[in-house]
């Protein structure tokens, strides 16, 4: 009895809902939508943003950073850096030690923390990469 009542109710509601049909949007719906799509396309073609560094470009960068991290974590970094010869700095130092510049600046008195050296190295590395990509991008 209950099943019969449910079946009748099901048929009755189905008939009414199908007959009432779907609601209709305004007449300009499609036209206005296609206009919006056109505008969006125009906008995206004018300013087509591209990443400065492509996905492939990030691979060597990531590899380099990982490599540096690996070396820093596993290497012996307690050594005395003053013993490591840096010819370029020595030459500059010698220049300032000469009579002409004596007293102006003593390069040997400059002490730079290791962290600063790493930071400068990384900064110059990324700066170098940026220049290459910026040139490519602007071209």
């Amino acid at each position: 009895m209950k099943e019969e009542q449910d079946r009748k109710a099901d048929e009755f509601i189905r008939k009414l809902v199908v007959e009432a049909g779907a609601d209709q949007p305004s007449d300009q719906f499609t036209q206005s939508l296609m206009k919006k799509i056109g505008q969006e396309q125009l906008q995206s073609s004018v300013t087509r943003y591209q990443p400065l560094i492509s996905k492939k470009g990030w691979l060597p960068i990531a590899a380099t950073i990982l490599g540096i991290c690996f070396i820093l974590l596993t290497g012996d970094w307690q050594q005395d850096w003053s013993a490591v010869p840096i010819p370029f700095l020595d030459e500059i130092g010698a220049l300032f030690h000469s009579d002409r510049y004596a007293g102006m600046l003593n390069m040997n008195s400059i002490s730079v923390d290791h962290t600063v050296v790493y930071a400068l190295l990384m900064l110059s590395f990324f700066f170098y990469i940026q220049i290459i990509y910026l040139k490519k991008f602007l071209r």
Partner: protein
Amino acid sequence: MMSRLTDQEIIIQVRAGDTATFSVLVDRYKSMVFTVAIRMIKQREDAEEVAQDVFLSAYGALETFRGDSKISTWLYRIAYRKSLDHIKKKKRKIITEFADVSERFDIGAMDQQMNSLEQNERNQCVKAAIEELAGDDALLITLFYLKELSLKEIEQITGFSSNTVKVRIFRGRKRLLEILKRRLEPEIIKAYEGRTG
């Protein structure tokens, strides 16, 4: 000619850069996408805005449409999600109503009363009754009865389990009968007065 294209052919053409063909897809599904939105949101202007947004998003994401489901199911799912977002944004509450499932209805009498109305009046009465249902229930009733979607397809659109869909359709139907019963009497009087006066 273009309207004879299958959904898949339209997708291929649009992906190849033929934007105009997308309008065929829009014309094909706009009424149902709009219906999904209006059942949930209940306001015509907002529903139209959401429906436009649905097609804009679909156009942008057409590249990612893998074809695992029918394009209609995909569009209705976007419409459902966007409608929920809209309701959330407007800070409106999603009302869930429960019908008295034990109440019995004289379907034969109700059918006779409905038939006594003009078709236009009848359709308006049914749409107004559906509008009184909670958003989710109105949508489930529409997808199940009007689009004749399976419980599985409705599950894909709404994220409700098939069992939940089944129970909610059952309760929604009862609630709809309650509303129709309440509405029918004044509607018949009004229709009678309209014809005689």
